[in-house]
């Protein structure tokens, strides 16, 4: 717990958050990006994909779609495409807050709460849009997911392969005759 506190204090000291943060979803930021440019916002969701370390920061993707809370491999419920926002997190802040790997297949990534300034088409970054994170808090660590077995499909595939080799063998025999 102490780690999260330290991370928050450090980040606030480094970046400074003037105005109170408003809780938003990644979908809202995407839909109404220009309206949120320069605003301090908080988003919650799963860190997913890769943690890229470049340009003096850690770049991560935060998904706040239904799969973040209810992973597809567990529920089997589809809920549309992914909804995400890019995070740019100072390296120190990230390393203090996150000691986990990002989400992906068979892994639900760490759930976090990120607060920072939303940059829409940032001229400093060649027109990219992202959340410039100043506070990062781990809500729930990542966890393993288990895939369903597909023995039936494997057996069916093997049988079909066997059948096809039999047919090819018969064809060869016929040609010899």
């Amino acid at each position, binding site marked *: 717990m102490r780690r999260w506190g330290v991370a928050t204090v450090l980040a606030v000291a480094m970046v400074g958050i003037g105005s109170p943060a408003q809780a938003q979803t990644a979908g809202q930021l995407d839909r109404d990006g220009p309206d949120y440019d320069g605003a301090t916002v908080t988003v919650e969701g799963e860190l997913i994909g890769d943690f*890229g370390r470049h340009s003096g920061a850690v*770049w991560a993707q935060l998904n706040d779609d239904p799969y973040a809370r209810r992973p597809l491999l567990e529920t089997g419920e*589809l*809920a549309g495409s992914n909804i995400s926002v890019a995070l740019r997190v100072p390296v120190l802040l990230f390393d203090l807050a996150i000691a986990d790997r990002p989400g*992906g297949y068979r892994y639900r990534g760490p759930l976090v709460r990120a607060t920072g300034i939303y940059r829409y088409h940032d*001229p400093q970054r060649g*027109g990219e849009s992202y959340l410039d994170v100043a506070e990062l808090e781990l809500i729930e660590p990542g966890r393993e997911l288990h895939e369903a077995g597909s023995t039936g*499909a494997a057996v069916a595939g093997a049988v079909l*392969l066997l059948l096809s080799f039999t047919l090819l063998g018969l*064809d060869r025999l016929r040609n010899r005759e």
Partner: protein
Amino acid sequence: MLLRPHREDALLIGFYLSRIIAVLGVAGLVPLVWAVLEQEWAPAASFLLMVGVAALLGAAGRFLRPAREHLDWSHGMVVVALTWLVVPAVGTIPLAMSGHYSRLLDAYFDAMSGITTTGLALIQDLDHLAASVNAWRHTLHFLGGQGIVLAALTFFAAGGILALYHGEARDEKIFPSVTSTARFIWLVSLFHAAVGMTSLFLVGYVRLRFDPGRAFLHAYSVFMAAFDTGGFAPQSTSLGYYHSPLFEFVTAMLMVAGALSFGAHYALWRGPRNILRNLETKTILLTFTVTLGATIVGLAVLGLFSDAYSLTRQGTFQVLSAHTGTGFSTLSGADLARWSGLAFAGLATAMALGGMGSSTAGGVKALRIGLTLKALANTIREALLPEHSVITATYRQNGLKHLSPQLAQSVMAVSLLYVGLYLLGTAVGAAYGVPLQDALFESVSAAANVGLSVGVTAPGMPVLLEVVYILQMWAGRLEFIAVFALVGMMVAWAVGE
């Protein structure tokens, strides 16, 4: 009088179709091995099933082989048209079994989008997709971009293969034989694969500091989609995921390489001067400049970007992606939907025009545009000159060639067919209440095999619209002739004697 096809015709078509499907089975071994290495057992089982289905169909076609194996022109065209319907159907198996699609049609849509190198996607929760299935989506791009039929030609040449070659919308023979041309195309592709994947891997691993395994997945996927002007991406945010101008630059180079015809690659290897004199090269440089200029001016008017670098970087990448028919984006669908007016016109026109002929790009194609403009200019000249003046129209494309009225007519006919195809999807989209601009954008994107989206293509979209987009991707990729041959044979089957 139409002659009804016989059983022997069906066997002949089935024979060649089955051989091409067998190639899909071989290609399916790549993601199967990938799944085993990653210990993704459920996807591995689905790949094994797909390989089994492809192998059985391949073996059945061989077992039921017809008395004669020589393909004539119309049979070859029908084989190609059916190939591009059946191969995605078999390739759908691992996608459908992944659990990431609401309905089977959605999985088939993505397989068709993959094989036609379109890049529109209905997959849900892409970010949690198994790496091997993700690799398979991109391998479909490679198979389709290189030409699955071309792959078959490389391995087992047979009588009548010229029809198969042309049926897949390729009309240039770099070498005297189709087989050696096919092998040259594969050589060019493998060279680019080695250089492209290594470059992308190095950017991912060294510059972006991704894990090596993940850097390889990104390199493999993005290379396949860029060089084959596909547009699928391994993450839901497309190229915007990387936040790296360097990654975008390498990808852009691969997109340009993919949009060049293989004849142009051959000419480039011999020296760039040869290619710069071609009408096709001049046309594509002109259309790219005009559409990019229009888009940049449009974006400046809209005020979506506050500085010149952002405007140029984002504008150039999206237009390049549209013009090469790739469909990668560094912006979200909602962002693209804000591109109205001249910016929209520039981007949509770039998509509609497409890349070079006999390349992996879609759209009307640069040579047709160039020839259409030349034919129009000649018509105007004819009207202005005295009545009995004789005008000889020529153009330079790997040598000086005569622009005959027949050639001009056929070029304009295909261009008009594309316009009709664009309008068909627009009309169906608009009928479902999609705003006209969005309906037009998405329709052009599907029919020109681009893949940029303003959000119309989404899970839960109307079934009819989805089917229309599937047909648009299919007909657009084959450039109509093979489609007409198939329709003709179906009509003959139904009403022939």
